[in-house]
């Protein structure tokens, strides 16, 4: 089943965010929605996640999926340990011991097995973001939505975390859709980068990428956004 947005319209008060917007996603791949701040990328994600509804048009495929989220603010529960947080969405969906096993597996994959019993206040910003990645992958779903998830991290840390993200994703292979305005992040993660512009949100260009193509992508960015 495809993941599709068709002829979506969405306005907030007088501001038209989306008008006749359509986009189809490739299952099993990582798609990046790239665009300037405030262009409506988050609205797109919210439509896919069912957080907001479109004024008109159809969102298909998404409501049937089990979706994990990685937010910019990590939304870790301060009163739960690393293990407790990763386990939180698994309880009731997997049998007890299997839930713990799954949670531990993903905590190990993000390199936090020694911090399993730590509370969020004892972790650095990067570690917290790793926990939220572990939580998203541990959740038995088929789609991950990410919203500027790596924005507040410094560069070294960001690459580190992006590496662990890709490592887990290669084992897991689920569909990932993420929004960012950070081109390094887009190039590093995205297999397809969709360049967007605003008022209303439009697709300008779609580029398939691999590491060798990063220069081409960067020049596309210069050409589109800084003519």
């Amino acid at each position, binding site marked *: 089943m495809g993941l599709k947005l068709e002829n979506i319209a969405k306005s907030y008060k007088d501001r038209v965010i989306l008008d006749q917007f359509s986009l189809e996603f490739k299952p099993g791949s990582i798609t990046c929605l790239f665009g300037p701040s405030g262009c409506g990328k988050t609205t797109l994600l919210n439509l896919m*996640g069912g*957080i907001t509804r479109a004024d008109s048009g159809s969102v298909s495929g998404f409501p049937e999926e*089990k*979706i*994990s*989220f990685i*937010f910019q*603010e990590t*939304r870790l*529960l*301060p*009163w*739960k340990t690393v293990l407790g947080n990763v386990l*939180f*969405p698994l*309880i*009731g*969906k997997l049998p007890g011991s299997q839930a713990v096993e799954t949670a531990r597996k993903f905590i190990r994959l993000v390199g936090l097995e020694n911090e399993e019993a730590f*509370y*969020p*206040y*004892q972790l650095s910003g990067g570690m917290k973001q790793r926990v939220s990645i572990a939580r998203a992958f541990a*959740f038995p779903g088929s789609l991950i939505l990410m919203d500027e998830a790596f924005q507040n991290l410094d560069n070294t840390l960001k690459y580190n975390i992006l590496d662990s993200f890709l490592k887990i994703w290669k084992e897991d292979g689920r569909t990932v859709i993420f929004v960012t305005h950070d081109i390094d992040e887009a190039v590093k993660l995205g297999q397809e980068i969709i360049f967007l512009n605003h008022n209303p949100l439009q697709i300008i260009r779609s580029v398939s990428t691999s590491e060798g193509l990063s220069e081409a992508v960067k020049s596309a960015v210069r050409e589109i956004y800084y003519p």
Partner: protein
Amino acid sequence: MAANYPMNNSSVRNRIISLCAIVILVIGWEWLSRSFNSRQILPGPLDTLNSLINVAGKPDFLSSLGFTLLRGLIGFLFAFTGAILIGIPAGLNSGIEAGFKPILITLRSTPVVAIILLALIWFKAEQVPVFIGFLTMFPILAINISQGIRETDTAFIQMAHLYHIKKRRILTDIYWPSILPYLYSGISTAIGFGWRSVIIGEVLSQPRYGIGAMMQDAQSYLLVSEVIAWTVIAILVSAVFEWIIRLVEKRSIRWKQWA
């Protein structure tokens, strides 16, 4: 993680200041009682200490203390149960809150003595202090609990919805822990007010045993040092409550970095 020193310089200094203030208070008290020149009207600290030892040695002492504690405890349990039953729905639903708010605020602003006078007509002597304790503590607890619910971070609730977490678990795993700090501060305030109200209730309703009843007895025989001795006991018990609440709070909220 930052190094965690058990006590820094300014907190040592502040403790010394507090200690000095207590010493000055006691010296001032002694001076005042000497200048009155009548131990009957204002006994000094030493007389009070003597009375305290005397009072604590009386056969009725433990029953008086125990009954007051029991009344306070029963009043608290009723208030707590009621506050949970009303505070949580009120915090979740603004309509329910709008319904209860005027009642709670009226209760909180009604003079305790007015309620006692009415309670004396409605209840038996033994029940009056319990009822007063309940009425004093209930609105404070209910308001704090509903505020705690309302202040719960909606980002957590949204996250839980996105991960299809059941309602019951949202209540126990998100709302409950996030109201705990409000709950403890509510309990601490409520017990402070409630303890005093229970004793006032006892003074006026005169049950067989109780700190308030003993105070009233002592007062009617003009035993001023005994009245002060019971007052000191009431203050000490209140301090012990506060200490226990803080201890339980630190034990149960481990996710916070305590200063």
